[in-house]
């Protein structure tokens, strides 16, 4: 048994266990009402996720962040249970018609949980002037994020942030497997050797399976974040098209009986397919607007979205999936080699 097969199993087990069991950081998922008026005191009910409002009740603070410096502090916080609380906010006068404010809830147990654009404060025409005094400086020294091995809490994504380890990394390892396939296809054209072709086709085949899984996991993710299994988004369509190109590759291989001819034609086609796929997946979606992250103004991986705890599972996931694919490809190669030997003998 080769070391890398064992490594792939260990990495994948680690990814599955850590990817599913590590909890999210505390966050806020709901706040009602959304529309509030300026110069009034409003009672807001807040629903947290993975929070410990009850445990950290003594140090609990809630703030509505108006700008980078100032905010309104909640008074009369009533904790109902670990994830529910109500708080009164005395809102002062605002400039302009309306403005969005973010909600910050902080305590010693959870540290700070943030909900961006939590409420919309609209101007109350009957408001008295001078209530701006209620604005206070935000106590940044008391804000912080919870320490420990926890995945970040993101609005909209919530628990599906874990899909990063499966959807994103399976596409990346698919690409790596296709690169190996491309390498062996070129090698076959330079020096025709049937084993190069067997290697190339095995790697391409498992890469196609990976691509299908990538499409499926992406579809599930889309259902939970965008509310639909499939949209006519350019990135999604181009991914489907590139899968079609590679499905044509498998059909092409199936359509030719002669071994050498099949090897040559499929090598040529797979190089063409790979080159054709690059503008489809990496150029076209970037040029137009797209819902998919990484295209048309949406942030891609890196920066705030991929924090260190996600990286600790994400990179092992890519390596583990790639090695696992390599393992399956070698099994496939052995089967193909046996078929080839059999076809020579007969």
């Amino acid at each position: 048994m080769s070391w890398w097969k064992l490594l792939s199993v260990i990495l994948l087990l680690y990814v599955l266990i850590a990817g599913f069991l590590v909890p999210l950081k505390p966050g806020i998922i709901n706040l009602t009402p959304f529309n509030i008026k300026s110069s009034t005191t409003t009672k807001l009910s807040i629903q947290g996720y993975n929070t410990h409002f009850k445990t950290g009740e003594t140090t609990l603070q809630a703030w509505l962040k108006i700008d980078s410096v100032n905010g309104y502090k909640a008074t009369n916080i009533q904790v109902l249970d670990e994830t529910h609380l109500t708080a009164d906010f005395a809102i002062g006068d605002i400039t302009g018609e309306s403005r969005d404010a973010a909600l910050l809830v902080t305590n010693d147990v959870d540290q700070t949980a943030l909900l961006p654009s939590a409420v919309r404060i609209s101007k109350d025409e009957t408001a008295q002037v001078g209530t701006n005094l209620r604005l206070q400086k935000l106590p940044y020294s008391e804000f912080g994020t919870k320490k420990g091995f926890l995945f970040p809490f993101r609005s909209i994504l919530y628990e599906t942030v874990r899909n990063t380890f499966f959807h994103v990394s399976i596409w990346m390892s698919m690409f790596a497997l296709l690169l190996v396939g491309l390498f062996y296809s070129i090698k076959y054209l330079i020096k025709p050797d049937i084993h190069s072709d067997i290697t190339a086709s095995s790697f391409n085949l498992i890469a196609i399976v990976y691509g299908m899984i990538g499409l499926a996991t992406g579809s599930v993710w889309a259902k939970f974040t965008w509310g639909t299994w499939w949209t006519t988004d350019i990135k999604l369509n181009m991914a489907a098209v590139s899968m079609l190109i590679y499905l044509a590759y498998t059909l092409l291989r199936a359509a030719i009986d002669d071994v050498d001819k099949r090897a040559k034609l499929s090598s040529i086609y797979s190089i063409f397919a790979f080159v054709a796929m690059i503008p489809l997946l990496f150029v076209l979606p970037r040029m137009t607007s797209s819902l998919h992250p990484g295209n048309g103004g949406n942030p891609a991986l890196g920066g705030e979205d991929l924090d260190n705890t996600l990286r600790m599972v994400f990179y092992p996931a890519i390596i583990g999936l790639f090695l696992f694919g390599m393992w399956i490809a070698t099994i496939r190669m052995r089967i193909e080699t046996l078929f080839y030997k059999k076809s020579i003998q007969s």
Partner: protein
Amino acid sequence: MFIALNITVHSFTREQSKSVLFYYSILHPIELFITRLLFNFLFLIGTAVLLILSMTVLLENPIQDLGLFMLVLSLSSLAFSIIFSFTSAIAVHTGMKNTMMTVMSLPLVIPVILTAVKLTLVSANVIMEDGTDSDIMILSSINLIYLGIAVILFPYLWRS
């Protein structure tokens, strides 16, 4: 209406080129490929121009920006002829030419069709769009990439 016209142009010319392509499958590498490609290209352009003329006579011409339209037309015809020339060269070696031809070329032309349709709509003022320059860049770079890789790979197809 114009989308329909555009799509008919595409599908019509595609069927035509497909049947014409199989008439040649002997002779020698790159020159042959280039000649064949040029023939297809001219054929596509010719058909498209004929179609536009007849459409203009019979109906009205909705195109505002003729220069852009012709540019898009020639670029996408070039892309089509590269793709069809190349895939047909592969397909003639297989048992079922027509099926393989369609299966292989269809996914390859989809991005070209999408970009071309969008640009044609812009030239007909159906939609307003700022990114026409980058779309033309996309079309030309797709052409360049496909042409380059096809020319590199074509000699290998003829070695047997």
